[in-house]
């Protein structure tokens, strides 16, 4: 059940960090972390909470960059190829190249403008 204050309530204090409303399920995050390698044995309680926020930032950035590709194509529906283009065009997302190219896409990697702002 989502409370009135969203996750951002943590920044103004007074919200339960552990069981408060996070945008991503902590148990699932923990599971993914455990699966990432044999070395990962123990995970502190705060780690999934930190990742919940980090993933949110990641998804937001990749979504914004993908949307810029969508707009350049004068479309209103963000599709898979837009995400792939954004990944290819962003250096720090190089770790995703194998993942998105596995989907069998061949999209041109046009350089994107760096103006990330919510525009309608």
């Amino acid at each position: 059940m989502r409370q009135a204050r969203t996750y951002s309530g943590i920044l103004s204090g007074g919200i339960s960090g552990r069981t408060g409303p996070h945008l991503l399920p902590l148990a699932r995050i923990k599971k993914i972390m455990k699966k990432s390698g044999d070395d990962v044995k123990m995970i502190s309680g705060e780690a999934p909470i930190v990742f919940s926020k980090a993933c949110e930032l990641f998804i937001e950035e990749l979504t914004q960059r993908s949307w810029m590709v969508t707009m350049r194509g004068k479309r209103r529906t963000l599709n898979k190829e837009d995400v792939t283009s954004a990944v290819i065009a962003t250096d720090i997302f190089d770790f995703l190249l194998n993942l998105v190219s596995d989907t069998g896409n061949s999209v041109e990697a046009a350089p994107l403008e760096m103006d990330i702002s919510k525009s309608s």
Partner: protein
Amino acid sequence: MVDEPDRLLPIANVGRIMKQILPPSAKISKEAKQTMQDCATEFISFVTGEASDKCHKENRKTVNGDDICWALGALGLDNYAEAIVRYLHKYREAEREKASSRNKATCRSSPEKDEKSSEDKSGQPPQQTEAPTARLAS
């Protein structure tokens, strides 16, 4: 791609985050959400791997929030690292306040499970999870 849904972040949550950053009139294809699911999941694995390597080299068993912050910086994701350092700081403050107000309220009369784990360095993060034996740090 979604053979084992458990191994990915839930598509509903991912879609919600995408939606909230886009203009209201924007639409998102299902495949785009699935791709984002994959990417976000890979993000977690990638960063965790780096954090875990560091712990291993330093002979520590538990990956904590600081390790994740470090890994984000090490992998070139400096913007995230800065934001997460701030977030972690606020979170730990909130946890401390919660613990101290509980101590005052109950005068330690009711034994709280797992909430009093202490770790000097980082100001009492919550209890370690994933312990094979339920380990209460004192």
